[in-house]
């Protein structure tokens, strides 16, 4: 039986992890490759690298990083951040990324999803959506790292993107991100129950029971978190043992 996936996310700036970590065994806490290797050994099921560099040199640094990760990490990894074209994706995949995630660029030009799925296959196209629940009770799509609100409902954009060839949805709730108060169960369930592709829940995971809920109640296929793993608030082996006790199928 297919398992639920636990995915640590590493924010990358100029080829280094930001936000810091609390890993005592790391020689260089800022080195994404070293951190990634530790997660892989601990039983992380996949990794996501999110590039937040804003300079022109970013592409070259990111490509070098991807190449190093591919050589040294033996689990699948996704690269996202600022990807806007087939050419951007081509160089990342050529250097060993397994999947890429697109966000704002795909929303602004939805044909990008068709182009990427057509060129590389749906299996490597992850559509990332940052979403926020407004006072009217609806979840809307936000762009540019949550800075720009759109009038598009999250569920509508997710459906369209899947029709266009997205192979997975990475759903981040801005209401929950950073709160450590639990994932957004309602919108995660809405997507997970209606879409034909896997849904990765992100934002709000702070305790093992939050992960159990997002899998059992919301039907997420995977759950992503960053700082709780980086700061050892939850260890991946402990989290997986917890989930297993609650009959959530995980890879142990």
């Amino acid at each position, binding site marked *: *039986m*297919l*398992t*639920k*996936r636990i995915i640590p996310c590493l924010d990358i700036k100029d080829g280094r992890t930001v936000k810091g970590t609390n890993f005592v065994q790391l020689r260089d806490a800022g080195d994404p490759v070293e951190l990634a290797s530790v997660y*892989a050994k601990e039983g992380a*099921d996949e990794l996501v690298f999110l590039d937040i560099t804003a300079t022109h040199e970013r592409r070259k640094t990111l490509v070098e990083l991807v190449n190093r990760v591919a050589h040294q990490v*033996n*689990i*699948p990894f996704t690269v996202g951040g600022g990807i806007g074209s087939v050419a951007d994706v081509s160089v990342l995949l050529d250097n060993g990324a*397994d999947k890429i995630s697109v966000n704002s660029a795909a929303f602004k030009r939805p044909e990008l999803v068709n182009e990427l799925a057509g060129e590389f296959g*749906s*299996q490597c196209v992850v559509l990332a959506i940052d979403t926020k629940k407004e006072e009217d009770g609806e979840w809307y799509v936000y762009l540019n790292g949550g800075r720009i609100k759109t009038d598009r409902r999250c569920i509508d954009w997710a459906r369209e993107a899947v029709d266009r060839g997205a*192979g*997975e949805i990475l759903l981040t709730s801005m209401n929950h991100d950073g709160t450590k108060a639990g994932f957004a169960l309602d919108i995660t369930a809405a997507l997970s129950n209606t*879409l*034909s*592709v*896997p849904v990765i829940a992100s934002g709000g995971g702070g305790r093992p029971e939050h992960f159990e809920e997002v899998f059992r109640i919301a039907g997420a*296929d*995977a759950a992503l978190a960053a700082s709780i793993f980086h700061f050892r608030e939850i260890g991946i082996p402990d989290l997986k043992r917890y989930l297993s006790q609650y009959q959530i199928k995980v*890879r142990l």
Partner: protein
Amino acid sequence: MRYLRERKLDQMIKELKQPVLGICLGMQLLCKHTEEGDTECLGVFDNNVRKFTGNLKVPQVGWNTATQLSGSLFEGLGNDPWFYFVHSYYASLGDNTIARTDYGGMFSSALSNDNFYGVQFHPEKSAEAGEKLLRNFLSI
């Protein structure tokens, strides 16, 4: 398959005598026929490739177990090792099946026939179990 035929690699591959390992689509190409584009394949394995149907998320993405293992490819890997899968099509069960995986029903997660081997999962992305399998292949 068109790419292979244009370069006459289809004949060449079938005549290989050294150990050959097909991964994911590489395994499917070694089967008899695939529903993907209704395509005749190389026919090294006596299996047909079909699309997942029913109430399943497609592609299957993630970690699943391989069971009922046979042969040296899986030596030292225990009973039900975990491997990483990403695929929308699967190979049916048959005489060449050397591992089975359940996703809405059992399918062939590994095949072998003489010097040819195929795995539906990605050993290169399957942590220690995948590395072990690749080492086993290299020592065949």
